[in-house]
């Protein structure tokens, strides 16, 4: 660890703590957000996520070494964590902390983008099915039934294995395209209830085009479950990416991702457990934070808990 990267790390920690403090302060003004911060885990989740996002964005500053270059495969391999190597070195003598920081970019990036694809697609399909009902609904929902029955991990595994290595973009796309089914059911149920509400009926009676009714009136009112399911999807996509990388068919090495790092360390787990330990801990922390944030959001966005 160079002086610069220590400094950047401290700044990242302080910054994330400040962000949470600021959010908390702002939250005092709104009953909804006060409810969110009533969950202590939700506040911690926000802090952990902010910290890891800062680390991912500022990876070149936080990481002292290049994540791919192997400085000295003979003398520097499998070093235990120390002040010079914050998380030790792996079997190829690469600095685990540097790989961790750059891996955060890949893992969080795939998580966020994959979930974005999944949730937007799921919301659109769910909204269209719930709004138009009849045969549109029947066809789309039978499709979703099939999608839910597809063994997702096998399908992604096959897609990846068949086309040899998928590039980053394709991997994200494949994961996103196979993760939207549950969201679409959720949104459909919500839209089915909303479409009978007076404001939607009024909009239709005024001759507002269907697309505007769906995107301007119905979907914004279904935002709460969509946001919650988005938070959960990010975690699911992250876990899927990690499993694929662990099996050696996700993100292509030597590019670091957290799943990749677990796989790298699995070989030397008895002699150098730190390689696997930190990456796995990071995945668990992110997924846990997202679950906690989703719990908090569910409470915060629940209209039944709003003061009358």
């Amino acid at each position: 660890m160079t002086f610069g990267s220590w400094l950047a790390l401290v700044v990242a920690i302080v910054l994330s703590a400040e962000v949470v403090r600021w959010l908390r302060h702002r939250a005092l003004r709104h009953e909804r957000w006060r409810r969110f911060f009533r969950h202590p885990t939700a506040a911690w989740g926000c802090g952990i996520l902010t910290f890891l996002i800062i680390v991912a964005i500022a990876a070149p500053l936080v990481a002292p070494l290049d994540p791919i270059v192997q400085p000295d495969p003979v003398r520097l391999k499998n070093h235990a964590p120390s002040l010079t190597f914050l998380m030790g070195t792996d079997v190829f003598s690469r600095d685990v902390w540097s790989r961790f920081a750059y891996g955060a970019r890949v893992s969080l990036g795939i998580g966020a983008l994959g979930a974005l694809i999944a949730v937007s697609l799921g919301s659109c399909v769910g909204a269209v099915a719930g709004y138009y009902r009849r045969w549109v609904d029947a066809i789309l929902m039978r499709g979703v039934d099939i999608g839910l029955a597809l063994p997702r991990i096998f399908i992604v595994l096959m897609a990846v294995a068949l086309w040899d290595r998928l590039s980053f973009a394709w991997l994200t796309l494949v994961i996103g395209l196979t993760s939207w089914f549950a969201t679409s059911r959720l949104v459909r149920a919500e839209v089915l209830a909303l479409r009978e509400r007076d404001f939607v009926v009024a909009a239709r009676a005024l001759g507002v085009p269907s697309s505007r009714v769906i995107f301007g009136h119905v979907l914004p009112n279904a935002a709460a479950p969509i946001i919650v399911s988005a938070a959960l999807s990010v975690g699911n996509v992250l876990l899927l990416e990690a499993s694929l990388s662990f099996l050696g068919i996700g993100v292509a090495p030597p590019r670091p991702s957290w799943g990749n790092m677990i796989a790298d360390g699995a070989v030397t787990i008895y002699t150098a457990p730190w390689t696997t330990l930190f990456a796995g801990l990071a995945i668990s922390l992110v997924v846990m934070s997202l679950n906690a944030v989703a719990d908090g959001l569910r409470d915060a966005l629940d209209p039944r808990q709003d003061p009358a």
Partner: protein
Amino acid sequence: MTAWLLRRLAASVAIIFAVVTFVFILIHLAPGDPCIVGTGEGVPDPAVCRSLIRQFALDQPVLVQYWRYLVELAHGNLGYSFALHRPVWDALVDTMPFTLQLAGAALLIDFGLGLALGIYQAWRLNRLPDVVLGNVTLFVYSLPTFWLGLILLLLFGEKLRLFPVGGASDPVLCPLVDSFYCLADRIWHMVLPAVTLGLVGAAGTARFQRAAMLEVAQQDFVRTARAKGLPERRVVLHHQLRNALLSVITRFGLTLPFLLTGAVLVETIFAWPGMGRLTVDAILRRDYAIVTAAALIASSLVVAGSLIADLLLGFADPRIRVHEDAVVDIVTA
């Protein structure tokens, strides 16, 4: 009821059919040609290759191949694995018992431990045990199973040397000593993989069960039970629990397919000779016959899981004894 069941069965078959078709299309969309890829030992002799292509009808149009595949499937023939040089069915029969044993043990831990924790938490709601357990289950629930497996392997297999680090039985002693030893040996080998698979599920079940108990707790009959002066323990364990167990049935239906897909990673880590590992190996070797069969089994499990859950719900809860379409729609969480 019979009409409903028939309709559900027809829909299930249709779904499985669609999944099989999808997998078939996926394989045929993929680039590559048996003559180019070969079996990994360079380019095969063109003459051999041509005869192989003719033998397996790979020169026929895709639709003809699809039809032949479906006909074979209808006869219960899952195909032939080139990598293993044996019919897929035989390979499945060999590995299935191992997966079923592991899945059964994991299921036991999942629901046994999960239900107990969930009920205990609901009983001590918002007190210290509930808060602590709530955070612990949240953390465990978020663990990647394969990472938990590695850590357990490191701690209990290597550091403490309490359990074996892989495999399903002792290859040397078990065939020699009596069957009781073999049984004990199998259980001893199963502890780590089953705990890995079951623990994450148990955390999820505990959270689910707690939420279900709280949902029920807000209903009028629970308030009535309290107002009648029933002891708290009886209210929780009798009134709340019995009604909260209904949603556990739903969760059970959702967990069923996961035992195969979740076992994929765990079996790989613990070198457990089950279907999950067979599938992963097949995918890495491009052994499509096995992959298609595994996809077929996995999707059948999904469909069967939701069907079983619906049926059980109908038995357990007279309120939803299936009338027309008012069947509880199982929403995957």
